[in-house]
């Protein structure tokens, strides 16, 4: 119970840090804390292998990818953090939507109280061996489909980042020099009258 409260509080605090940090780098660091605390929660749920995968794959590889991209992008726009800092104006709408989401999810969680107490576990539940038996036994097809998903992601990433910058730039309307503040509305509307007519409801 104490472990759950401590780690759960850490997870919530880190999650709030992710969405409230001013700098994206701080967001990534908070996200690493969050993922590590979730890994500890997985351990308390006897999902040892999954906890290790979480640390190795998520807190390791994916977060390095995040930091790498962050460095790549901020290096191109010196002196200016990528993206905006202030939240948008629709805070009231956001809070209302989130209250609805959290309410629905909490009702589901309370409904989970009707679930049976923890059933007796077979020995080695959550170990790498049991995980492998399940993965390559009844769940072979989902496992193979993740291979397909990863292959798709690799092909997509290579295709996206293989030097089609000019094609992308031509495909975008209202050419602006890189780094300049973007105001597509006026330029695009002046250039295309039918677009202006369409944009008015």
């Amino acid at each position, binding site marked *: 119970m104490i472990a759950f409260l401590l780690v*759960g509080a850490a997870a919530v605090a880190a999650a709030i840090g992710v969405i409230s940090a001013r700098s994206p780098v701080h967001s*990534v660091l908070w996200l690493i804390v969050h993922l590590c605390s979730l890994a500890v929660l997985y351990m308390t749920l006897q999902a040892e292998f999954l906890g290790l995968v979480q640390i190795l794959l998520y807190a390791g590889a994916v977060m390095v990818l995040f930091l790498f991209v962050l460095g790549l*992008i901020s290096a191109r726009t010196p002196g200016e953090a990528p993206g905006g800092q202030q939240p948008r104006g629709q805070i009231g709408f956001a809070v209302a939507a989130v209250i609805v989401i959290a309410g629905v999810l909490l009702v589901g969680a309370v409904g989970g*109280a009707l679930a049976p107490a923890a059933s007796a576990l077979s020995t080695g539940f959550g170990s790498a061996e049991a995980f492998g038996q399940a993965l390559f036994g009844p769940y072979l097809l989902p496992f193979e489909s993740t291979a397909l998903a990863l292959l798709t992601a690799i092909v997509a990433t290579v295709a996206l980042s293989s030097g089609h910058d000019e094609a992308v730039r031509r495909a975008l309307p209202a050419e602006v020099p890189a780094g300049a503040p973007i105001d597509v509305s006026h330029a695009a509307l002046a250039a295309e009258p039918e677009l202006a007519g369409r944009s008015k409801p």
Partner: protein
Amino acid sequence: MPVGLPFYLGLAAVLFAIGAVGLLLRRDALVLVMAIELMWNAANLALVATARYYGDMGGQVFAFVVITAAAADVAVGLALAVLVGRARGTLDADQLKWLRG
């Protein structure tokens, strides 16, 4: 007092809601991807908790599949972010609006 399934599901709900708040409030595209990560992980926590309390490995296997899907999502999302950042010099979601119909 043992920690029951509702505690874990409630925690997952709270984490999912925090991710949703971030998705709605922030403007930096990279932070939006991170908020989506928070929501993936909240779902994962619910999956692992139910797997534990029903004694079924299926939940853990599905959480593993979700981790893979999230990794693929991050890879493609960050590639798109780099491309857009290069072409436009900004990642502010409010200014990236030329996809609007």
